[in-house]
């Protein structure tokens, strides 16, 4: 039998094309289904479906432990970081001290000089008055108590390091019936101990508690 088929090549091409299309279709369908499945899983995860309260507690505990371990172990790993932290703690607000002094003054007193260091401070006042020295001394004592009270409330000093009179009033200048008296106060700030951080306790809110 003699059997030609002029469609052999076309049939083969069609078959190849069919196979190719089937393969592409399979790839497309499988990748699409994988993608859809992935999206579904992510969506379900975002809804926390599958997690319980105990799991959440465990997660929180693990996060807390890790945070504490990080701060104890890693956060202060380098000394320079600790120094910077401590120096920042020691820095005091001059404006708040000045504010405490200024509010204690009256019209006969002016602040002539103010020296502050890490350890202590010195204040020089000038008083213009016609009163006697004994009267002025009583006024100076009242001023010292008032300023001490304020600094004590602000936590810059404690009972053991109260501000003292370093120099008793001396007449610096006379003008008519008034005298210009000069006297100095001084004292040390209380010594703040370098603080280390503690891990936040459960329920204490976010942030750090510094001591």
């Amino acid at each position, binding site marked *: 039998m003699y*059997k030609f*088929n*002029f469609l*052999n090549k076309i*049939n083969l091409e069609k078959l190849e094309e069919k196979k190719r299309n089937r393969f592409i279709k399979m790839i497309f369908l499988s990748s699409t289904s994988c993608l859809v499945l992935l999206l579904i899983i992510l969506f379900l995860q975002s809804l926390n479906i599958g997690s319980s309260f105990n799991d959440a507690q465990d997660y929180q505990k693990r996060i807390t432990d890790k945070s504490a371990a990080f701060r104890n172990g890693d956060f202060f790993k380098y000394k320079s970081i600790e120094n910077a932290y401590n120096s920042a703690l020691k820095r005091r607000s001059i404006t708040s001290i000045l504010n405490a002094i200024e509010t204690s003054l009256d019209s006969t007193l002016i602040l002539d000089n103010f020296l502050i260091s890490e350890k202590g401070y010195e204040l020089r006042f000038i008083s213009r008055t016609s009163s006697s020295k004994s009267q002025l001394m009583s006024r100076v004592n009242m001023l010292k108590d008032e300023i001490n009270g304020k600094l004590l409330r602000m936590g810059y000093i404690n009972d053991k390091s109260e501000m003292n009179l370093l120099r008793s009033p001396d007449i610096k200048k006379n003008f008519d019936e008034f005298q210009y008296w000069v006297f100095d106060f001084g004292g040390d700030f209380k010594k703040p101990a370098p603080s280390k951080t503690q891990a936040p306790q459960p329920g204490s809110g976010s942030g750090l508690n510094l001591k």
Partner: protein
Amino acid sequence: MTDDSQKESKSIGRNIFAEGKSDLFKNKPDSGKKDAPSVDSSPKSFGRNIFSEVQKTPETFKTSAGNEDLKIIEKSSKRETTDKKPTADTSGSKRSKINAVHITKENVTFAQTTFDGVQYKLTNLQVMPIELPQITEENLLKDKEDPEIVIRRLQVEAIDKVFTRAGVSKKDPMIVSSLNGPNIIIRQLYVQNTPTENVEMELPRLVKSPFNELISRYEYIPLHSDGMNHDVLASIVESSTFFNALTLFNMSGIECQVLDIDKMAIVNLYNESVKPPKGTVSCIIDINNDYSHIIIIPSGNEELYIRNIEFTYSAFKKMLQKNRDISVAETEEMIRTRNFYDYITNAFEAETTENLNQHYSVKKYVRMQLLRELQKTFQYYSQQNQNKIPSKIYITGKALEMSKFAQFINKNTDIPCDKLDVTGFFNGDSTVLDYAGEKESIAYVAIGLALRYE
């Protein structure tokens, strides 16, 4: 022209094959034995033998017909052939049914067969003629449509009807059709020193296409292979023929899986019908409306040889109509009833005018386009195949509608001639077989196409 007519007149009433004294017919088979593979060295002498006449001037034949033969003789160069084992296209061989559709400008034919492993069964046959609109004075100027488009539309309509009547889906997984027409060349080739995968690439070099190389489609079927040497049957089809067929399938919605060649369907039909013994060489004269072939089919080591001829039913009908100056219907009636041998007699010529005989010589047409082509075919084949010529001639197609055509061929070739039986080997419903017998001149190609089982 005058010389030809005088020359032809000498042969009137004689058997043109009988005086075969030439070497060509020394081994001619005995015409009295059907399908006999043996040859007879003393052919019967009934009259003049057209073969011996041509044999007298072999040089003239070679030179004058050389270029023409390149176009129409589908034959390869001589080579030693080994056992030919037809390796068929197996596509569809495992299907339960084969649906074959044969489409021409005149008919659409559908045939369905089944095979039980031993015998074929013809289960369905549908023939749908295509009636071209008759040109009348009324529609002559109105109808501006291209005739080709009209035919294409009518073909599509006929295909629809045929499939509807057959009850077969156009998307059936096994539909076979064929390419037909003159622009198909088939040649048997011997390809040497070529790997199997390169055979196809070698075809354009081995077989020169009569068409433009760029618009030629090559196909081949391996017949026998011996490592690097291959015996193949190659075909060249003009692309327009191929794509016209594809366009028609697309238009009609047919999903055709197998596209064969009608000539191969006829060869397969012959093999199934005759079942020739080994060594037999037979010939089929296939006459169609627009194209005709002479097919020499071996059943041994010889080559399959197909030659296109100009003798077609439409051309013959036209020639006869002009010669007689009669209507188409009258011409067809004449072809059906009048002895074909009459057309080459002086008595037939005397029935019309000398002028018409001169311009539309039926006798000359039959002798030159049919008998001479037959002679050239046999001569060429015998030269290429150890002086073998067909032991029997079968006629198919429109030749069956020509009165006493087989007797005419028999008388002129001295070779037994008969019509090819297209239904006898089938099993099945007698109604279908009777219908197939009735339409055998039309349905034979479709039936041949449906014989694709192993």
